């Protein structure tokens, strides 16, 4: 605003109208910035796919204080609902010990010099953002602490199902929340998500001690 003021005076005087620099409109900004994205990375076609936004990511990339409309939120929820897949076994509660290990594994899926990390499976990244078992210090706080998750909620079938869906695609309950759609983006397999459910709700899991 400060910068456009003298420019405005020139414009009013009928001078330099074409020379008045100002912010581009949203569509122009989008066009310019999207072009930047696709020129900025060196990658194989498969890796370049990661730069393409799906419909939900487009909706969830609100700039600044722009607000998600009710219709947009409903669309994100619907897309999330449709994305959720369950293990072939039908078991949505796996092994809490495997889940514990995965919760503390922040690696997997990263790309360096054109190569994806060479690992047996991706970590579940939980520790990066969530408090986990009581007394654990090396945990992030971007998301809420999950300490006592199952102790508070129990381990009913309904809770297991809710927890599974939440991890697989967080946006089914919280459209556009900061949490990655871990199953839907392909970072975790349905079987891994089931291990995470066990880690969260099993009474034997350290998170519920």
């Amino acid at each position, binding site marked *: 605003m400060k910068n456009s003021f003298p420019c405005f005076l020139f414009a009013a005087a009928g001078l330099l109208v074409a020379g008045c620099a100002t912010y581009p409109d949203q569509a122009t900004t989008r066009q310019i*910035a999207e072009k930047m994205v696709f020129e*900025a990375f060196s990658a194989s076609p498969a890796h370049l796919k990661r730069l393409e*936004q799906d419909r939900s990511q487009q909706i969830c990339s609100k700039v600044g204080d722009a607000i998600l409309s009710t219709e947009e939120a409903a669309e994100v929820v619907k897309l999330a609902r449709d994305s959720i897949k369950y293990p072939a076994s039908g078991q949505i509660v796996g092994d809490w010990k495997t889940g514990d290990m995965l919760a503390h594994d922040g690696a997997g899926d990263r790309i360096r010099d054109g190569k994806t990390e060479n690992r047996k499976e991706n970590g579940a990244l939980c*520790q*990066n953002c969530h408090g986990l078992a009581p007394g654990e210090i090396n945990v992030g706080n971007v998301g809420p602490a999950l300490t006592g998750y199952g102790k508070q909620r129990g381990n009913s079938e309904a809770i297991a199902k809710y927890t599974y869906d939440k991890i697989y695609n967080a946006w089914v309950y919280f459209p556009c929340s900061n949490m990655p759609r871990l199953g839907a983006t392909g*970072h975790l397999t349905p079987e891994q998500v089931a291990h995470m459910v066990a880690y969260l709700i099993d009474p034997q899991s350290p998170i519920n001690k």
Partner: protein
Amino acid sequence: MDTRLGIWAAAIAALQLAVIPPLFAQSGDPLAVGRKMLIEDNPGELWIDQGQALFYEKRGPKKVSLEQCDFGMGPGKLEGAAARLPRYFADTDRVEDLETRLLTCMTRLQGFDRNELVKTAISAPASKGSDIEALALFITSRSNGMKVNVSLNHQKEYEMYKAGEYLFYRRSGQTDFGCVQCHGEPGKRIRLQDLVHMTSKAGTQEVSSTWPAYRGSHYVVRTMQWRLNDCVWQMRLPDLKYATEYSIALTTFLNRQGNDAVIQVPGFKR
């Protein structure tokens, strides 16, 4: 130089080990005291002299110094120049940040090969560092004590700023992350690492005034370009090329938001 760096590295490693345990119990930021101790005697200072020597030395196929390089205040005028970057340059007809401008001068004036410069621009940890890292720090240090003052006048500066803002919020990839997912709220951490709150004035001011910085865990000076590269790597995006419009846009957005911060480099990062 090598011996001095080695001593520093050993001292820092010892400090890092020494300060961690007693602090765990009392603070959300257990490394803060150690960090403060290190800032008071920042090893990154060593890179300033190195950058200064590189700046005035006749180098490259054309055997000239960088004294004819215009960082926006006129050829060779460095005082306060970095504080106004990124900005529009008429000779390239584009907005350039510090590292892009260095590439422009090192190729055009000195005749270096751009691809070769880019390949070595980000150095290996515990190395002597790259020429660009030392030069970027030296040039920025000539704005120490001055306020960041990124202005938007040219149409391309407005476009760059808006594109940077857009990219800050753009989500993609396996983690659905944009910048704002980690840098949008105060008091947040990834594990024990503090995240700068970049939707606040104070946060962007920290960004705009502390790079290049000495990175304690790498024993080298790092630039803003390195910072962005490491972020997109953790975001699970592909390899970010060096000095692209994407980086310049984000840097323009953040530095402009961080106007009026007093520059003090080298910063110190964990």
